[in-house]
Protein backbone atom coordinates (compact mmCIF):
# COMPACT_ATOMS: atom_id res chain seq x y z
CA UNK A 1 0.00 0.00 0.00
CA UNK A 2 1.33 3.42 -0.92
CA UNK A 3 1.67 5.70 2.17
CA UNK A 4 -1.06 8.32 2.41
CA UNK A 5 1.32 11.29 2.34
CA UNK A 6 2.89 10.03 -0.87
CA UNK A 7 -0.56 9.75 -2.42
CA UNK A 8 -1.32 13.32 -1.36
CA UNK A 9 1.89 14.53 -3.01
CA UNK A 10 0.82 12.71 -6.21
CA UNK A 11 -2.48 14.56 -6.05
CA UNK A 12 -0.60 17.86 -5.76
CA UNK A 13 1.52 16.89 -8.79
CA UNK A 14 -1.65 16.08 -10.75
CA UNK A 15 -3.04 19.53 -9.96
CA UNK A 16 0.28 21.05 -11.11
CA UNK A 17 -0.13 19.31 -14.49
CA UNK A 18 -3.66 20.65 -14.88
CA UNK A 19 -2.42 24.16 -14.04
CA UNK A 20 0.36 23.75 -16.61
CA UNK A 21 -2.20 23.09 -19.34
CA UNK A 22 -4.50 25.81 -18.05
CA UNK A 23 -1.66 28.35 -18.24
CA UNK A 24 -1.45 27.79 -21.98
CA UNK A 25 -4.73 29.66 -22.49
CA UNK A 26 -2.68 32.86 -22.78
CA UNK A 27 0.94 33.58 -23.78
CA UNK A 28 1.23 35.68 -20.62
CA UNK A 29 0.58 32.84 -18.18
CA UNK A 30 1.96 29.98 -20.27
CA UNK A 31 5.53 30.04 -19.04
CA UNK A 32 4.60 30.15 -15.37
CA UNK A 33 2.18 27.26 -15.96
CA UNK A 34 4.90 25.16 -17.52
CA UNK A 35 7.21 25.81 -14.58
CA UNK A 36 4.45 24.72 -12.19
CA UNK A 37 4.08 21.52 -14.22
CA UNK A 38 7.83 20.92 -14.06
CA UNK A 39 7.79 21.46 -10.29
CA UNK A 40 4.99 18.90 -9.97
CA UNK A 41 7.00 16.38 -11.97
CA UNK A 42 10.09 17.02 -9.84
CA UNK A 43 8.22 16.51 -6.55
CA UNK A 44 6.51 13.35 -7.82
CA UNK A 45 9.85 11.92 -8.94
CA UNK A 46 11.35 12.64 -5.53
CA UNK A 47 8.60 10.95 -3.51
CA UNK A 48 8.43 7.80 -5.63
CA UNK A 49 11.48 6.65 -3.67
CA UNK A 50 9.30 6.66 -0.52
CA UNK A 51 6.38 4.85 -2.15
CA UNK A 52 7.75 1.47 -1.16
CA UNK A 53 11.20 0.14 -0.23
CA UNK A 54 13.23 0.39 -3.44
CA UNK A 55 16.54 -1.26 -4.21
CA UNK A 56 19.14 -0.48 -6.88
CA UNK A 57 19.04 3.19 -5.86
CA UNK A 58 22.46 4.06 -7.29
CA UNK A 59 21.87 2.64 -10.80
CA UNK A 60 18.43 4.29 -10.82
CA UNK A 61 19.86 7.70 -9.95
CA UNK A 62 22.52 7.30 -12.63
CA UNK A 63 19.82 6.37 -15.17
CA UNK A 64 17.68 9.38 -14.19
CA UNK A 65 20.71 11.67 -14.38
CA UNK A 66 21.76 10.31 -17.76
CA UNK A 67 18.26 10.72 -19.21
CA UNK A 68 17.87 14.20 -17.73
CA UNK A 69 21.18 15.38 -19.21
CA UNK A 70 20.40 13.88 -22.63
CA UNK A 71 16.93 15.45 -22.62
CA UNK A 72 18.07 18.86 -21.43
CA UNK A 73 20.98 19.06 -23.87
CA UNK A 74 18.73 18.03 -26.76
CA UNK A 75 16.11 20.56 -25.70
CA UNK A 76 18.65 23.38 -25.45
CA UNK A 77 20.50 22.65 -28.67
CA UNK A 78 17.53 22.10 -30.97
CA UNK A 79 16.70 24.81 -33.47
CA UNK A 80 13.15 26.05 -33.48
CA UNK A 81 12.76 24.79 -37.05
CA UNK A 82 13.47 21.26 -35.80
CA UNK A 83 10.84 21.38 -33.07
CA UNK A 84 8.52 18.81 -34.71
CA UNK A 85 11.32 16.25 -34.89
CA UNK A 86 12.19 16.80 -31.26
CA UNK A 87 8.59 16.47 -30.11
CA UNK A 88 8.27 13.27 -32.15
CA UNK A 89 11.48 11.90 -30.64
CA UNK A 90 10.54 12.74 -27.03
CA UNK A 91 7.12 11.27 -27.64
CA UNK A 92 8.66 8.10 -28.99
CA UNK A 93 10.96 7.54 -26.02
CA UNK A 94 8.07 8.20 -23.62
CA UNK A 95 5.93 5.59 -25.38
CA UNK A 96 8.87 3.21 -25.41
CA UNK A 97 9.42 3.68 -21.66
CA UNK A 98 5.74 2.95 -20.94
CA UNK A 99 5.86 -0.19 -23.12
CA UNK A 100 8.98 -1.45 -21.34
CA UNK A 101 7.43 -0.85 -17.92
CA UNK A 102 4.39 -2.88 -18.98
CA UNK A 103 6.58 -5.69 -20.39
CA UNK A 104 8.30 -5.92 -17.01
CA UNK A 105 4.92 -6.02 -15.24
CA UNK A 106 3.56 -8.74 -17.54
CA UNK A 107 6.73 -10.72 -16.86
CA UNK A 108 6.22 -10.36 -13.12
CA UNK A 109 2.55 -11.40 -13.21
CA UNK A 110 3.26 -15.11 -13.66
CA UNK A 111 4.77 -15.29 -10.20
CA UNK A 112 2.79 -12.81 -8.11
CA UNK A 113 -0.67 -13.71 -6.73
CA UNK A 114 -3.02 -13.73 -9.71
CA UNK A 115 -3.77 -10.16 -10.87
CA UNK A 116 -7.25 -9.30 -12.13
CA UNK A 117 -8.12 -9.72 -15.80
CA UNK A 118 -8.57 -5.94 -16.09
CA UNK A 119 -5.02 -5.37 -14.89
CA UNK A 120 -3.46 -7.88 -17.27
CA UNK A 121 -5.50 -6.51 -20.17
CA UNK A 122 -4.39 -2.98 -19.33
CA UNK A 123 -0.77 -4.12 -19.19
CA UNK A 124 -1.03 -5.89 -22.55
CA UNK A 125 -2.70 -2.80 -24.05
CA UNK A 126 0.11 -0.62 -22.68
CA UNK A 127 2.77 -2.76 -24.35
CA UNK A 128 1.10 -2.67 -27.78
CA UNK A 129 0.13 0.99 -27.85
CA UNK A 130 3.42 2.11 -26.31
CA UNK A 131 5.29 0.18 -29.00
CA UNK A 132 3.07 1.70 -31.72
CA UNK A 133 3.89 5.13 -30.35
CA UNK A 134 7.61 4.39 -30.19
CA UNK A 135 7.94 2.97 -33.71
CA UNK A 136 5.49 5.45 -35.24
CA UNK A 137 7.31 8.39 -33.69
CA UNK A 138 10.68 7.19 -34.96
CA UNK A 139 9.33 6.86 -38.51
CA UNK A 140 7.80 10.35 -38.15
CA UNK A 141 11.17 11.62 -36.94
CA UNK A 142 12.90 10.06 -39.96
CA UNK A 143 10.40 11.70 -42.33
CA UNK A 144 10.78 15.14 -40.75
CA UNK A 145 14.54 14.92 -40.49
CA UNK A 146 14.77 14.00 -44.16
CA UNK A 147 16.25 10.59 -43.40
CA UNK A 148 13.57 9.08 -45.63
CA UNK A 149 11.14 10.30 -48.27
CA UNK A 150 8.35 12.59 -47.10
CA UNK A 151 6.02 11.07 -49.66
CA UNK A 152 3.56 8.37 -48.67
CA UNK A 153 5.23 4.97 -48.74
CA UNK A 154 2.72 2.44 -49.99
CA UNK A 155 3.34 -1.09 -51.23
CA UNK A 156 0.90 -3.72 -52.46
CA UNK A 157 -0.57 -5.63 -49.57
CA UNK A 158 0.17 -2.92 -47.00
CA UNK A 159 -3.51 -2.46 -46.02
CA UNK A 160 -3.91 -6.24 -45.62
CA UNK A 161 -0.68 -6.51 -43.63
CA UNK A 162 -1.71 -3.61 -41.40
CA UNK A 163 -5.16 -5.06 -40.75
CA UNK A 164 -3.63 -8.48 -40.04
CA UNK A 165 -1.15 -6.94 -37.59
CA UNK A 166 -3.90 -5.13 -35.71
CA UNK A 167 -6.10 -8.24 -35.50
CA UNK A 168 -3.18 -10.37 -34.35
CA UNK A 169 -2.30 -7.74 -31.75
CA UNK A 170 -5.88 -7.77 -30.41
CA UNK A 171 -5.79 -11.58 -30.22
CA UNK A 172 -2.40 -11.40 -28.50
CA UNK A 173 -3.76 -8.91 -25.94
CA UNK A 174 -6.50 -11.43 -25.06
CA UNK A 175 -3.98 -14.29 -24.81
CA UNK A 176 -1.54 -12.24 -22.71
CA UNK A 177 -4.37 -11.07 -20.45
CA UNK A 178 -5.36 -14.66 -19.70
CA UNK A 179 -1.86 -16.09 -19.49
CA UNK A 180 0.63 -13.26 -18.84
CA UNK A 181 4.36 -13.82 -19.09
CA UNK A 182 7.52 -12.67 -20.82
CA UNK A 183 6.94 -14.44 -24.15
CA UNK A 184 3.46 -12.94 -24.77
CA UNK A 185 4.82 -9.55 -23.66
CA UNK A 186 7.63 -9.66 -26.23
CA UNK A 187 5.21 -10.81 -28.93
CA UNK A 188 2.94 -7.86 -28.10
CA UNK A 189 5.86 -5.45 -28.31
CA UNK A 190 6.93 -6.79 -31.72
CA UNK A 191 3.37 -6.55 -33.06
CA UNK A 192 3.10 -3.01 -31.71
CA UNK A 193 6.38 -1.95 -33.35
CA UNK A 194 5.25 -3.38 -36.68
CA UNK A 195 1.85 -1.69 -36.43
CA UNK A 196 3.51 1.64 -35.61
CA UNK A 197 5.73 1.52 -38.69
CA UNK A 198 2.86 0.45 -40.96
CA UNK A 199 0.63 3.17 -39.53
CA UNK A 200 2.98 6.05 -40.34
CA UNK A 201 4.63 4.87 -43.58
CA UNK A 202 1.66 5.74 -45.83
CA UNK A 203 1.23 9.22 -44.34
CA UNK A 204 2.41 12.02 -46.63
CA UNK A 205 4.65 14.85 -45.49
CA UNK A 206 1.92 17.47 -45.24
CA UNK A 207 -0.07 15.28 -42.84
CA UNK A 208 2.82 14.40 -40.55
CA UNK A 209 1.87 17.12 -38.00
CA UNK A 210 -1.47 15.40 -37.39
CA UNK A 211 0.31 12.11 -36.84
CA UNK A 212 2.65 13.62 -34.23
CA UNK A 213 -0.35 14.85 -32.30
CA UNK A 214 -2.13 11.50 -32.62
CA UNK A 215 0.93 9.56 -31.40
CA UNK A 216 1.21 12.01 -28.51
CA UNK A 217 -2.35 11.10 -27.53
CA UNK A 218 -1.44 7.41 -27.87
CA UNK A 219 1.45 7.79 -25.46
CA UNK A 220 -0.89 9.56 -23.04
CA UNK A 221 -3.32 6.62 -23.16
CA UNK A 222 -0.41 4.23 -22.69
CA UNK A 223 0.76 6.04 -19.57
CA UNK A 224 -2.81 6.11 -18.22
CA UNK A 225 -3.19 2.35 -18.69
CA UNK A 226 0.25 1.84 -17.18
CA UNK A 227 -0.90 3.86 -14.17
CA UNK A 228 -3.77 1.46 -13.65
CA UNK A 229 -1.42 -1.52 -13.89
CA UNK A 230 1.00 -0.05 -11.34
CA UNK A 231 -1.79 1.19 -9.08
CA UNK A 232 -0.52 4.75 -9.50
CA UNK A 233 -3.22 7.45 -9.63
CA UNK A 234 -0.84 10.19 -10.83
CA UNK A 235 0.06 8.22 -13.96
CA UNK A 236 -3.62 7.59 -14.62
CA UNK A 237 -4.53 11.28 -14.33
CA UNK A 238 -1.50 12.62 -16.23
CA UNK A 239 -1.85 10.06 -19.01
CA UNK A 240 -5.58 10.65 -19.36
CA UNK A 241 -5.10 14.43 -19.51
CA UNK A 242 -2.61 14.01 -22.35
CA UNK A 243 -4.69 11.37 -24.09
CA UNK A 244 -7.88 13.43 -23.99
CA UNK A 245 -6.24 16.72 -24.94
CA UNK A 246 -4.11 15.08 -27.63
CA UNK A 247 -7.15 13.48 -29.20
CA UNK A 248 -9.02 16.77 -29.21
CA UNK A 249 -6.03 18.61 -30.70
CA UNK A 250 -5.67 15.96 -33.39
CA UNK A 251 -9.31 16.35 -34.39
CA UNK A 252 -9.04 20.15 -34.36
CA UNK A 253 -5.94 20.04 -36.55
CA UNK A 254 -7.46 17.60 -38.99
CA UNK A 255 -10.46 19.89 -39.24
CA UNK A 256 -8.09 22.83 -39.81
CA UNK A 257 -6.72 20.97 -42.79
CA UNK A 258 -10.19 20.11 -44.05
CA UNK A 259 -9.97 16.37 -43.63
CA UNK A 260 -10.80 13.65 -41.18
CA UNK A 261 -8.22 11.86 -39.07
CA UNK A 262 -8.97 8.60 -40.87
CA UNK A 263 -8.43 10.13 -44.31
CA UNK A 264 -5.10 11.48 -43.08
CA UNK A 265 -3.97 8.06 -41.97
CA UNK A 266 -5.48 5.89 -44.62
CA UNK A 267 -5.98 8.30 -47.56
CA UNK A 268 -2.86 7.12 -49.38
CA UNK A 269 -3.97 3.51 -49.06
CA UNK A 270 -7.07 4.20 -51.10
CA UNK A 271 -4.78 5.28 -53.91
CA UNK A 272 -6.32 8.71 -54.40
CA UNK A 273 -3.11 10.71 -54.51
CA UNK A 274 -1.49 12.02 -57.66
CA UNK A 275 1.81 12.97 -56.17
CA UNK A 276 4.28 14.61 -58.48
CA UNK A 277 1.84 14.28 -61.36
CA UNK A 278 1.89 18.03 -62.00
CA UNK A 279 2.41 19.33 -65.51
CA UNK A 280 5.85 20.16 -66.87
CA UNK A 281 7.43 23.02 -64.99
CA UNK A 282 9.20 24.65 -67.96
CA UNK A 283 6.30 27.05 -68.40
CA UNK A 284 7.25 30.73 -68.29
CA UNK A 285 7.17 32.55 -64.96
CA UNK A 286 7.69 36.23 -64.26
CA UNK A 287 10.64 37.03 -62.06
CA UNK A 288 11.96 40.36 -60.86
CA UNK A 289 14.81 41.93 -58.90
CA UNK A 290 14.71 42.94 -55.25
CA UNK A 291 14.54 46.61 -56.33
CA UNK A 292 11.38 46.00 -58.37
CA UNK A 293 9.73 44.26 -55.45
CA UNK A 294 10.86 46.97 -53.04
CA UNK A 295 9.05 49.59 -55.15
CA UNK A 296 5.97 47.38 -55.32
CA UNK A 297 5.92 47.01 -51.54
CA UNK A 298 7.05 50.54 -50.67
CA UNK A 299 4.20 52.21 -52.54
CA UNK A 300 1.44 49.80 -51.56
CA UNK A 301 -1.03 50.67 -48.85
CA UNK A 302 -1.97 47.21 -47.67
CA UNK A 303 0.54 44.36 -47.57
CA UNK A 304 0.03 40.84 -46.24
CA UNK A 305 2.97 38.58 -45.48
CA UNK A 306 2.54 34.82 -45.75
CA UNK A 307 5.47 33.24 -43.93
CA UNK A 308 6.31 29.59 -44.47
CA UNK A 309 8.76 27.01 -43.30
CA UNK A 310 11.31 28.07 -45.95
CA UNK A 311 11.59 31.43 -44.19
CA UNK A 312 12.65 29.80 -40.96
CA UNK A 313 15.00 27.31 -42.60
CA UNK A 314 16.88 30.22 -44.15
CA UNK A 315 16.81 32.05 -40.78
CA UNK A 316 15.31 35.05 -42.59
CA UNK A 317 12.62 35.79 -40.00
CA UNK A 318 14.65 38.53 -38.30
CA UNK A 319 15.23 40.33 -41.59
CA UNK A 320 11.52 39.91 -42.38
CA UNK A 321 10.55 41.56 -39.12
CA UNK A 322 12.87 44.48 -39.90
CA UNK A 323 11.28 44.78 -43.34
CA UNK A 324 7.82 44.86 -41.77
CA UNK A 325 9.00 47.51 -39.29
CA UNK A 326 10.30 49.71 -42.12
CA UNK A 327 7.10 49.27 -44.12
CA UNK A 328 4.97 50.08 -41.07
CA UNK A 329 6.99 53.24 -40.50
CA UNK A 330 6.15 54.26 -44.06
CA UNK A 331 2.49 54.10 -43.03
CA UNK A 332 1.77 50.83 -44.78
CA UNK A 333 -0.65 48.44 -43.16
CA UNK A 334 1.15 45.10 -42.78
CA UNK A 335 -0.17 41.84 -41.33
CA UNK A 336 1.14 38.32 -41.14
CA UNK A 337 -1.26 35.64 -42.37
CA UNK A 338 -0.77 32.47 -40.35
CA UNK A 339 -2.12 29.20 -41.69
CA UNK A 340 -2.97 26.75 -38.89
CA UNK A 341 -0.39 24.29 -40.18
CA UNK A 342 2.21 26.77 -41.42
CA UNK A 343 5.59 25.27 -40.70
CA UNK A 344 5.82 21.62 -39.80
CA UNK A 345 3.34 21.42 -36.92
CA UNK A 346 0.34 23.42 -35.68
CA UNK A 347 1.38 26.73 -34.22
CA UNK A 348 4.95 26.19 -35.44
CA UNK A 349 5.04 29.47 -37.38
CA UNK A 350 3.98 31.38 -34.27
CA UNK A 351 6.96 29.95 -32.41
CA UNK A 352 9.35 30.72 -35.27
CA UNK A 353 8.15 34.32 -35.50
CA UNK A 354 8.18 34.68 -31.72
CA UNK A 355 11.85 33.78 -31.93
CA UNK A 356 12.29 36.78 -34.24
CA UNK A 357 10.40 38.93 -31.71
CA UNK A 358 7.38 39.57 -33.90
CA UNK A 359 4.58 40.71 -31.56
CA UNK A 360 1.92 38.01 -31.59
CA UNK A 361 -0.76 40.66 -32.03
CA UNK A 362 0.44 41.11 -35.64
CA UNK A 363 -0.17 37.47 -36.48
CA UNK A 364 -3.63 37.04 -38.00
CA UNK A 365 -5.27 33.64 -38.23
CA UNK A 366 -6.54 32.24 -41.50
CA UNK A 367 -10.27 32.77 -40.99
CA UNK A 368 -9.74 36.40 -40.02
CA UNK A 369 -7.30 37.26 -42.80
CA UNK A 370 -8.92 35.44 -45.72
CA UNK A 371 -11.63 38.08 -46.41
CA UNK A 372 -8.87 40.73 -46.45
CA UNK A 373 -6.76 39.31 -49.29
CA UNK A 374 -8.97 40.84 -51.99
CA UNK A 375 -8.43 44.28 -50.49
CA UNK A 376 -4.68 43.91 -50.25
CA UNK A 377 -2.26 45.41 -52.79
CA UNK A 378 0.63 43.02 -52.43
CA UNK A 379 0.91 39.63 -50.80
CA UNK A 380 4.47 38.57 -50.06
CA UNK A 381 4.78 34.80 -49.78
CA UNK A 382 8.07 33.86 -48.14
CA UNK A 383 9.02 30.22 -48.21
CA UNK A 384 5.43 28.98 -48.16
CA UNK A 385 3.86 26.91 -50.89
CA UNK A 386 1.28 24.26 -50.03
CA UNK A 387 -0.78 26.54 -47.75
CA UNK A 388 -1.42 28.97 -50.64
CA UNK A 389 -1.80 26.36 -53.38
CA UNK A 390 -5.18 26.77 -55.13
CA UNK A 391 -5.01 23.07 -56.05
CA UNK A 392 -6.55 22.53 -52.62
CA UNK A 393 -9.74 24.06 -54.04
CA UNK A 394 -9.53 23.15 -57.73
CA UNK A 395 -7.84 19.75 -58.14
CA UNK A 396 -9.87 16.94 -56.54
CA UNK A 397 -7.04 14.42 -57.00
CA UNK A 398 -4.37 16.48 -55.24
CA UNK A 399 -3.16 15.22 -51.87
CA UNK A 400 -3.94 18.58 -50.31
CA UNK A 401 -7.43 18.76 -51.87
CA UNK A 402 -9.93 20.03 -49.34
CA UNK A 403 -7.33 21.68 -47.12
CA UNK A 404 -8.40 25.25 -46.30
CA UNK A 405 -5.83 27.61 -47.82
CA UNK A 406 -4.91 31.26 -47.52
CA UNK A 407 -6.72 32.96 -50.41
CA UNK A 408 -3.61 34.62 -51.76
CA UNK A 409 -4.93 34.21 -55.31
CA UNK A 410 -7.52 36.92 -54.58
CA UNK A 411 -4.90 39.62 -53.97
CA UNK A 412 -4.05 42.23 -56.60
CA UNK A 413 -0.40 41.21 -56.82
CA UNK A 414 1.47 38.25 -55.42
CA UNK A 415 5.19 38.01 -54.83
CA UNK A 416 6.74 34.61 -54.15
CA UNK A 417 10.18 34.54 -52.60
CA UNK A 418 11.48 31.13 -53.54
CA UNK A 419 14.73 29.28 -53.68
CA UNK A 420 13.72 27.35 -56.77
CA UNK A 421 10.67 26.03 -58.60
CA UNK A 422 10.78 22.91 -56.46
CA UNK A 423 7.35 21.92 -55.10
CA UNK A 424 6.48 22.13 -51.39
CA UNK A 425 6.39 19.49 -48.67
CA UNK A 426 3.27 17.87 -50.17
CA UNK A 427 5.20 17.36 -53.42
CA UNK A 428 2.80 19.04 -55.84
CA UNK A 429 3.09 21.98 -58.19
CA UNK A 430 1.52 25.34 -57.46
CA UNK A 431 -0.48 26.85 -60.35
CA UNK A 432 -0.39 30.23 -58.66
CA UNK A 433 3.29 30.55 -59.58
CA UNK A 434 2.30 30.79 -63.27
CA UNK A 435 -0.50 33.30 -62.70
CA UNK A 436 -0.02 36.61 -64.59
CA UNK A 437 -0.30 38.64 -61.38
CA UNK A 438 2.46 36.63 -59.71
CA UNK A 439 6.06 37.78 -59.59
CA UNK A 440 8.86 35.54 -58.42
CA UNK A 441 11.91 36.64 -56.51
CA UNK A 442 14.42 33.82 -56.68
CA UNK A 443 17.23 33.20 -54.23
CA UNK A 444 18.05 32.17 -50.71
CA UNK A 445 15.37 33.67 -48.46
CA UNK A 446 17.90 35.29 -46.13
CA UNK A 447 20.02 36.94 -48.84
CA UNK A 448 17.01 38.05 -50.83
CA UNK A 449 15.31 39.40 -47.73
CA UNK A 450 18.41 41.42 -46.84
CA UNK A 451 18.54 42.84 -50.38
CA UNK A 452 14.84 43.64 -50.25
CA UNK A 453 15.24 45.31 -46.88
CA UNK A 454 18.04 47.62 -48.03
CA UNK A 455 16.16 48.39 -51.26
CA UNK A 456 13.04 49.40 -49.31
CA UNK A 457 15.15 51.48 -46.91
CA UNK A 458 16.68 53.29 -49.91
CA UNK A 459 13.29 54.26 -51.37
Amino acid at each position, binding site marked *: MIPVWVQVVYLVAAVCFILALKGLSSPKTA*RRGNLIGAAGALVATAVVFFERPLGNIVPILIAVGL*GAVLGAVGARRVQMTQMPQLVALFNGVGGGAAAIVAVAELHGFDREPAPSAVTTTAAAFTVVVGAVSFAGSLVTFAKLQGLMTTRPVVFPGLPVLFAATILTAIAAIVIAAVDPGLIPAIALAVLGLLAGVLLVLPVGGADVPIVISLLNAFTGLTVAAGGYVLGNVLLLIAGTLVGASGTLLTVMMARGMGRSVTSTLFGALRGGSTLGAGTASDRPVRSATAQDIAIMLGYASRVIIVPGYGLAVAQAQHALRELVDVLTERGIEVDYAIHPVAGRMPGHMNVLLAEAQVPYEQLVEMDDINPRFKHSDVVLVVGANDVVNPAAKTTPGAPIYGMPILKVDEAKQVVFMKRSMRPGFAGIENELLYDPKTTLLFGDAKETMDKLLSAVKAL
Partner: protein
Amino acid sequence: MNDAVVWLTILVLSIFVGLEVISKVSSTLHTPLMSGTNAIHGIILIGAISVAGTADSAPVLVLGLVATVLAAVNLVGGFVVTDRMLKMFTARRKAPPKRLQEAPGKEPTGKDKAP
Protein backbone atom coordinates in the same frame (compact mmCIF):
# COMPACT_ATOMS: atom_id res chain seq x y z
CA MET B 1 -17.19 2.08 -3.39
CA ASN B 2 -15.61 -0.70 -5.45
CA ASP B 3 -11.93 -0.09 -6.20
CA ALA B 4 -12.38 -0.44 -9.96
CA VAL B 5 -15.22 2.10 -9.84
CA VAL B 6 -12.95 4.60 -8.08
CA TRP B 7 -10.41 4.23 -10.90
CA LEU B 8 -13.12 4.58 -13.51
CA THR B 9 -14.37 7.75 -11.80
CA ILE B 10 -10.88 9.26 -11.85
CA LEU B 11 -10.48 8.27 -15.50
CA VAL B 12 -13.75 9.84 -16.62
CA LEU B 13 -13.23 13.04 -14.64
CA SER B 14 -9.67 13.37 -16.02
CA ILE B 15 -10.98 13.04 -19.57
CA PHE B 16 -13.37 15.92 -18.99
CA VAL B 17 -10.70 18.07 -17.34
CA GLY B 18 -8.34 17.38 -20.25
CA LEU B 19 -10.90 18.32 -22.87
CA GLU B 20 -12.04 21.38 -20.93
CA VAL B 21 -8.54 22.76 -20.35
CA ILE B 22 -7.43 22.26 -23.96
CA SER B 23 -10.48 23.81 -25.56
CA LYS B 24 -9.33 27.14 -24.11
CA VAL B 25 -5.78 27.01 -25.45
CA SER B 26 -5.03 29.74 -27.96
CA SER B 27 -3.99 28.42 -31.38
CA THR B 28 -0.86 30.60 -31.13
CA LEU B 29 0.37 28.16 -28.51
CA HIS B 30 -0.41 24.86 -30.21
CA THR B 31 3.25 23.90 -30.59
CA PRO B 32 4.09 24.56 -26.91
CA LEU B 33 0.87 22.71 -26.06
CA MET B 34 2.07 19.65 -27.90
CA SER B 35 5.51 19.76 -26.33
CA GLY B 36 3.99 20.52 -22.91
CA THR B 37 1.57 17.57 -22.95
CA ASN B 38 4.47 15.55 -24.32
CA ALA B 39 6.50 16.46 -21.23
CA ILE B 40 3.63 15.51 -18.90
CA HIS B 41 3.45 11.93 -20.14
CA GLY B 42 7.14 11.65 -19.31
CA ILE B 43 5.92 11.17 -15.73
CA ILE B 44 5.94 7.47 -16.63
CA LEU B 45 9.41 7.98 -15.14
CA ILE B 46 8.01 7.19 -11.71
CA GLY B 47 6.64 3.91 -13.07
CA ALA B 48 10.02 3.09 -14.57
CA ILE B 49 11.76 3.87 -11.27
CA SER B 50 9.33 1.56 -9.40
CA VAL B 51 10.04 -1.27 -11.83
CA ALA B 52 13.82 -0.83 -11.56
CA GLY B 53 13.64 -0.45 -7.79
CA THR B 54 11.62 -3.63 -7.21
CA ALA B 55 13.37 -5.73 -9.88
CA ASP B 56 14.14 -9.24 -8.65
CA SER B 57 16.20 -10.35 -11.65
CA ALA B 58 18.90 -8.80 -13.82
CA PRO B 59 16.81 -8.70 -17.04
CA VAL B 60 13.98 -6.84 -15.28
CA LEU B 61 16.47 -4.43 -13.74
CA VAL B 62 17.94 -3.72 -17.18
CA LEU B 63 14.44 -3.18 -18.60
CA GLY B 64 13.60 -0.85 -15.74
CA LEU B 65 16.80 1.17 -16.12
CA VAL B 66 16.37 1.53 -19.90
CA ALA B 67 12.80 2.72 -19.32
CA THR B 68 14.09 5.13 -16.67
CA VAL B 69 16.60 6.72 -19.07
CA LEU B 70 14.00 7.03 -21.85
CA ALA B 71 11.35 8.47 -19.54
CA ALA B 72 13.79 10.97 -18.02
CA VAL B 73 14.72 12.17 -21.54
CA ASN B 74 11.02 12.65 -22.26
CA LEU B 75 10.20 14.39 -18.98
CA VAL B 76 13.18 16.71 -18.58
CA GLY B 77 13.65 17.46 -22.28
CA GLY B 78 9.94 18.13 -22.71
CA PHE B 79 9.72 20.70 -19.94
CA VAL B 80 13.00 22.40 -20.89
CA VAL B 81 12.10 22.81 -24.55
CA THR B 82 8.59 24.04 -23.71
CA ASP B 83 10.10 26.63 -21.40
CA ARG B 84 12.50 27.72 -24.14
CA MET B 85 9.61 28.33 -26.50
CA LEU B 86 7.36 30.06 -23.99
CA LYS B 87 10.21 32.34 -22.90
CA MET B 88 10.19 33.78 -26.42
CA PHE B 89 6.49 34.55 -26.16
CA THR B 90 6.81 36.36 -22.84
CA ALA B 91 10.15 38.11 -23.49
CA ARG B 92 8.60 39.79 -26.49
CA ARG B 93 6.41 41.87 -24.18
CA LYS B 94 9.28 44.35 -24.19
CA ALA B 95 9.35 44.75 -27.97
CA PRO B 96 6.12 46.68 -28.72
CA PRO B 97 6.84 49.68 -26.44
CA LYS B 98 10.25 50.04 -28.08
CA ARG B 99 8.66 50.12 -31.50
CA LEU B 100 6.05 52.63 -30.38
CA GLN B 101 8.81 54.93 -29.20
CA GLU B 102 10.58 54.71 -32.52
CA ALA B 103 7.52 55.10 -34.67
CA PRO B 104 6.56 58.74 -34.01
CA GLY B 105 10.12 59.95 -34.64
CA LYS B 106 10.60 58.11 -37.87
CA GLU B 107 7.13 58.38 -39.34
CA PRO B 108 7.56 61.92 -40.76
CA THR B 109 10.76 60.98 -42.58
CA GLY B 110 8.98 57.99 -44.03
CA LYS B 111 6.16 60.21 -45.28
CA ASP B 112 8.59 62.80 -46.70
CA LYS B 113 10.07 60.17 -48.92
CA ALA B 114 6.68 58.88 -50.06
CA PRO B 115 5.42 60.32 -53.36
